[in-house]
């Protein structure tokens, strides 16, 4: 029997069509019904206008889009014979604000999505505190705004660097926001210090701790989430940063990757029209996001978790929390390395002299975000955006399920809805 379920609070909505076998999900397909046409809107525009337009694909990860655009443009400059090498200062500021956006995203997902949805599955739901997520996120946004002017929808990354030229005043203010965020995370979320958490050998170390995260962890185990929600145990990380390690992983084996092997196909949705395309790497579906990044970076606690619980819903959720801690630590440390005497932007050739193709790849909160641009005399001939949700939440056939389709099989519909959200779904990005 087919049951349609509207899934909300995923940066828009999606419809999941569950094909039930008794009380278990036999198979499911996913429909994303809204479309805006951002790629065609970009055509014929001055290429630099993309720096303003693409952040508006998404309210929660617009900064990742901005960075993907600036990388695509700089790649086009390089391919057009005018290589651009931004200063270390510009690269560090870009990375810092990207990391802060990721932190902002993870806090919201944790408090506004995962905790409330998990709570629905238990007899005595725990008190919901979505505004805790909003508060933590607002601190991360303030740290971004010191360099980016505002969040959301900043356009401060430009070809050759960044528009800002911070003093130590802004750097120290940003440091204070990060410290406040760390303190909040320790006191209000973890129940242990960041340092102790990062030294955990396994999540068993949460025993005896009373905190939001400890409750979440225990509830995941109570609900057997370490035995549910398995996808293909294949992972993909494509964005190059100091906090990630690119690669394609099958179980624990790592392989070399090149973004040129990413392709998209129309999603399979027999019950309703969708605007979504699935993203594949060399014709295979891969899971992307925090779990993929943590395994690829060889983070021992997540590797141990993966060895024991594979790519279960439990691993997916806990890997994100661990990533949150690592990103806070990384954000804090890179601010220290900023040298205000370096230039914010290097001189670049006039955009009108650029006729070339470029590709920009970043790790967005949910995984690789790929922007492909083709320029003729500085005007955009074509623009293609491939987002992480297209990798994770594709809708394919029974014979070749996508990560989310595989993860939802063989469990109850309620559990499947929760597991759907463990991937952190972004509806607006999927059908840009």
């Amino acid at each position, binding site marked *: 029997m087919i049951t349609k379920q*509207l899934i909300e*609070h995923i*940066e*828009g*909505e999606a*419809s999941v069509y569950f094909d039930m076998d008794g009380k278990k999900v036999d198979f499911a397909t996913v429909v994303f019904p*809204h479309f*805006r*046409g951002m790629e*065609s*809107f970009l055509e014929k*525009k*001055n290429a*630099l*206008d993309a720096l*303003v*337009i693409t952040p*508006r*694909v998404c*309210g*929660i990860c*617009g900064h990742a889009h901005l960075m993907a655009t600036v990388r695509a443009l700089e790649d086009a400059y390089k391919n057009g014979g005018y290589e651009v090498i931004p200063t270390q200062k*510009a690269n560090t500021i870009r990375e810092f604000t990207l990391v802060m956006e990721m932190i902002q995203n993870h806090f*919201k997902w944790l408090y*506004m*999505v995962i905790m*409330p949805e998990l709570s629905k599955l238990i007899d005595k739901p725990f008190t*919901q505190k*979505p*505004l805790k*997520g*909003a508060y933590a*996120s*607002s601190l991360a*946004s*303030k740290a971004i*705004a*010191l360099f980016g*002017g*505002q*969040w*959301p*929808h*900043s*356009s*401060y990354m*430009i070809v*050759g*660097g*960044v*528009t*800002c*030229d*911070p003093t130590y005043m802004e750097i120290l*203010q940003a440091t204070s926001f990060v410290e406040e965020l760390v303190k909040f995370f320790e006191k209000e979320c973890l129940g242990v210090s960041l340092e102790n958490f990062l030294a955990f050998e396994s999540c068993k170390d949460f025993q005896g701790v009373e905190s939001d995260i400890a409750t979440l962890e225990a509830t995941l185990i109570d609900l057997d989430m370490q035995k549910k929600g398995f996808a293909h145990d294949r992972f993909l990380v494509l964005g190059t940063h100091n906090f990630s390690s690119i690669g394609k992983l099958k179980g624990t084996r790592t392989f070399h990757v090149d973004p040129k092997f990413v392709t998209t196909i129309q999603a399979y949705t027999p019950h309703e029209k969708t605007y979504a395309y699935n993203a594949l790497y060399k014709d295979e579906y891969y899971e992307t996001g925090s779990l993929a990044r943590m395994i690829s970076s060889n983070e021992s606690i997540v590797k141990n978790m993966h060895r024991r619980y594979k790519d279960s819903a439990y691993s997916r959720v806990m890997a994100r929390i661990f990533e949150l801690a690592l990103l806070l630590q990384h954000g804090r440390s890179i601010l220290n390395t900023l040298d*205000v005497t370096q230039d*914010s*932007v290097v*001189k670049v050739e006039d955009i009108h002299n650029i006729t070339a193709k470029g590709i920009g790849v970043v790790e967005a909160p949910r995984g690789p975000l790929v922007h492909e641009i083709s320029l003729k005399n500085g005007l955009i001939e074509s623009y293609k955006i491939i987002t992480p949700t297209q990798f994770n939440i594709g809708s394919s056939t029974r014979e070749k399920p996508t990560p989310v389709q595989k993860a939802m099989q063989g469990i109850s519909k309620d559990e499947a809805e929760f597991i759907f959200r463990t991937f952190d779904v972004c509806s*607006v990005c999927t059908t840009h």
Partner: protein
Amino acid sequence: MHSKLETKKPKLLWLQGLTCNGNTHSFLNLNSLDTLLEQFEILYFPAFATDYTYEDILTCKLSCDVLIFEGTYDSTLQRGGILLADVLQHYAKSAKYIIGAGTCASFGGMFAEMNPQNKSGLLFKKGEWVTTFEMYKEKIINLSGCPMHPEWMAYTLQMILHHKTILLDELYRPQELYGYLSHHGCTRNEYFEWKVDAKNFGTKEGCLFYEQGCRGPMTHASCNKILWNEVSSKTRIGTPCLGCTESDFPRTHFFTTKTNMSIPQDIPFDVPKRSYLTMVGIAKTFHIKRLEGKLIDYKTTH
């Protein structure tokens, strides 16, 4: 007793058309979010669950006091399988106030650029009047901006809670928020006064109006009075104002100023062109050493 008190709270409903969720996320940055939201009964909010599901809202059996609409209105758009037009019309009837959150809801914005035939803001398409929600114009307040500033929404909701009259401009935006230009309070004002251009991006010095495309002197917004995320603004960190609160957003060539004879084609709002040109001519003859150098000389001072 408790619930009796709570039922007196105005009911707030946040609906969306074609959107990026940017206004929702902007609003979540509000410092006083908790205190503000406590004063309303939230029927639906896009970012987290409340007492009602979206499907409950779509049954159109509820009513609201304040209706917030985010995104471009598209008369053919269905959300949750129901025509948005019908849902909006239902809640607009009972609402005492309807707030257009962001430029898309106010003027159509970026998402009305593609296949524009069915798309608009609540009352305007670009600067032109549209009739769909005309019968509700007395209760509509536009908070344009891509995205709107969270404090602008907080101001509007507080004014409603305190039964104060909100004075609006001709585009239905609160005058207390949009009577200013984003130029007001910009840290680069002295460079504007003496016509000292920023030669490049990535500097603390120079005005971005002459070459870098800044729309600050003709954009109604209080971004440099009520700072973004409480700490900064685009122009303060060297990004030109993009004019995102105006009805013609998005324009094109955001990072370049269109000039005629090296004078910006669009001159500061309401300033007579001849007077402006005379003043520029005079100011350009001055050489103010302080404004031509660096504000901070990191390379030679220690």
